[in-house]
């Protein structure tokens, strides 16, 4: 049975990604090793000190007394067996902590990116159709404000308004502690906790998509095939949906794929402020505590996610524009 070209293409991309991932892991490992201090320094700092024998014992136990290249070799060996090791900060296997956090981050990323994408594209297209009008100016200015506003500042403003002053939304966390909700009550509870973080994270990206979509629509509207379609009597809606949008979306999709990784970076701040237990917050604490295994685990996971998203982006691309061939 012949393999469908799309599957063959995806499989080839996955195979090509393996050496990239290995290089990323080696590079990150060495980079982290360049940072001054290790897990033991951070742990001892937290404890408020310890005697030399204690420090030496910890270091030996964690294998930090070995040369860096030996540590790297041992780490890669474990990774090859899909063993992410032990987190000395959380005192749990890295994989356990990662899987517990991944869901929250994916939820936050998915909701922020989809809101940003849907509203960004819609507003951008809308603004382009009314280019240089008052509506366009209002939308564009708002976009600029959202784009310029640092997410931590926006987050704190929202907390101040919606939690402290109005008391409508919880300050942080992912669930109401001790409520032990189940079923729909739990879903509603989680959703309430996600409102502000999602808003904070999505507004910046929304501004991105909006600007890009507006420019893109304006550009495509000038192209010959649109003029031809219009001359042939296509209605404005059909023109927009069938002719302009499909083409104008191409650069936006590219951005979406690229931004998947930056959203992860943005989530560090948002997750920390809203004390959302996700990968972003975990990455931050892992850096501060020099939790090497944890950090490597996060990098591995994120690299995989980014590679997968990139492949998906290319597939969507080909679907949107049949002229692009999958090779």
């Amino acid at each position, binding site marked *: 049975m012949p393999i469908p070209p799309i599957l063959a293409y995806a499989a080839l991309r996955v195979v090509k990604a393996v050496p990239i991932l290995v290089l990323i892991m080696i590079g990150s490992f060495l980079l982290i090793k360049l940072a*001054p*201090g290790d897990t033991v320094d*951070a742990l001892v700092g937290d404890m408020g000190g310890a005697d030399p024998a204690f420090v030496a014992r910890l270091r030996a136990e964690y294998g930090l007394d070995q040369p860096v290249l030996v540590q790297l070799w041992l780490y890669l060996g474990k990774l090859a067996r899909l063993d992410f090791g032990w987190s000395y900060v959380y005192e749990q296997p890295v994989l356990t902590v990662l899987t517990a956090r991944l869901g929250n981050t994916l939820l936050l990323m998915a909701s922020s990116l989809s809101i940003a994408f849907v509203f960004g594209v819609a507003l951008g297209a809308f603004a382009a159709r009314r280019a240089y009008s008052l509506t366009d100016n209002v939308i564009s200015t708002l976009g600029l404000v959202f784009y310029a506003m640092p997410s931590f500042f926006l987050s*704190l403003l929202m907390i101040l308004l919606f939690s402290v002053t109005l008391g409508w939304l919880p300050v942080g966390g992912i669930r109401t502690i001790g409520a032990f909700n189940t079923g729909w009550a739990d879903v509603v509870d989680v959703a309430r906790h996600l409102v502000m973080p999602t808003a904070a994270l999505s507004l910046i990206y929304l501004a991105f998509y909006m600007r890009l979509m507006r420019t893109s629509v304006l550009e495509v509207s000038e192209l010959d095939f649109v003029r031809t379609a219009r001359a042939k009597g296509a209605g404005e809606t059909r023109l927009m949906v069938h002719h302009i949008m499909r083409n104008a979306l191409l650069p936006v999709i590219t951005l979406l794929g690229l931004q998947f990784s930056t959203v992860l970076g943005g989530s560090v701040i948002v997750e*920390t402020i809203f004390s959302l237990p996700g990968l972003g917050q975990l990455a931050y604490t892992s850096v501060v505590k020099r939790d090497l295994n944890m950090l490597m685990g996060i990098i591995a996971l994120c690299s995989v996610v980014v590679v997968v998203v990139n492949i998906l982006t290319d597939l969507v691309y080909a679907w949107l524009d049949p002229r692009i061939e999958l090779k």
Partner: protein
Amino acid sequence: MGQLRLVGGALGVAAAALTAAHAQDVQRGGTVIVHVNAEQGVLNPALRASTGVYQITGKFMEPLIELTYEGYEGVLATEWSSSADGREISFTLREGVNWHDGQPFTCEDVAFSAMNLWKPLLNYSSTLHANLEAVDCPDPHRAVFRYSQPMPLELIVAAMPDLGHPVPKHLYEGTDILRNPHNQAPVGTGPFRFGEYERGQYIIGLRNEDYWRGEEYPYLDRVIWRFIPDKAAAAAALEAEEIMESPFIGISMEDMRRLGDDPRFDMGPQGFEANTAHSTVEFNFRNPILADLRVRQAIYHALDIDFALQTIMRGYGQPGRGPIPSTGGENYTDDVPTYAYDVERARQLLDEAGYAPGPDGIRFRLRHRPAPWGEYTQLWAEYFVQAMREVGIAVELVTNDAPGFLTGVYRDHDFDTANGWHQFRSDPAVSTTVWLRSGAPAGTAWSNQFGYESAEMDRLIDEAAQELDPARRAELYHEVQRLAMTDLPVIFAIEHPFLGISNRKLMNHHNTPRWDSSSWYDLWVAE
């Protein structure tokens, strides 16, 4: 009993708070949610001696002896005494105490913990118990610690609230102690038993229905620790009354002051007396400029301590008088050399030392590392730069995160001056004198990073650590302070308590000098 004298002022406040609480009837039940800055991997105070660990595990696991405003109080021990030669210390253990799994608490647990956790595995305790040979159990409720060298009873008692938490032998014996699952799910004898640890979110403690203090204790049904790493978010949670307390300056000083003025909250140093710390300026003797005593004296004279106290610490604290804080009981003395703010004197000393200002007005340059422990230390570093500029010393700041700072200062000794804070733990022998004693290998945090070597200082420290007569022991520590203030390896610039903020609905809060580390058996909420 020195503790009594030193907290006299705070005692009055506590007494007033107690009267207020008794005016109302105690309400049983309810949940209290409190703020914790950073996650704890290990929840076993017999493995990790740190305030972050006690803050949580103090509710689950109890020490043999606790510190109160009235002095040392027996918790799992009821009496303690020392043999005449100081080589045997005996504890009478409380009877009728059960672990949370129902097993009785006996001397076997204490002996096992001391020999298998405290001595070999617990930070600071391995120094404390270096000469511990064995713990005997003549009967189930008597533990006799045998030492090869004289051990001052005072020292052991002062160390117990921090370093004296037993673990249940039956859950640890024959296991890999460091990987034992109970290090994350502690089983203790405390008023609350461990409920649930949701990483990155919260830890829940549930009421222990079988608590030895009696059926009425604890008053609360649950205690929940919520991890909020961001200070501004924590302040908002406090303001929105989602959390009831934030200890150890867990929110920014500005928010502390703002919320402290709000009638809904109590803010202040009460309940942190046993956690007193010094804001320090530390020297590296490996730099020949700083090895000159006159230069160190000049730097001290160039610091306007009162100004720093008012602006950086907002008035909370007092000028430091050497390595032991005024809360250190009879081991403290204020009869030490001092260095008043005197810029002219500072310039004169620098001239004498041979460092006249160059054409640009600069005498010499220093690389300064500030410790990243919160707001105080950063502001201190900035003030230090300004103050030094006044006397012609150009200071360059080198900032790092915690592991970077510790490595730079303690392992690589890559600094000229540094500043941070140093917390006093009840007795100078526990963690203070290691700072001044020579001989610690490089890389040991909070040991002699200065490269300061004084045979006289080493002698005083070693003698005091084994001196059995409390009066003589105190005299030796006074000598240590005088010598430290004379040789100036470090400037103990400001002695400051930590601050906490709590909702006024909390009753009996901050009623012991290490309240956040204590068991909270008598805490309740007024609705």
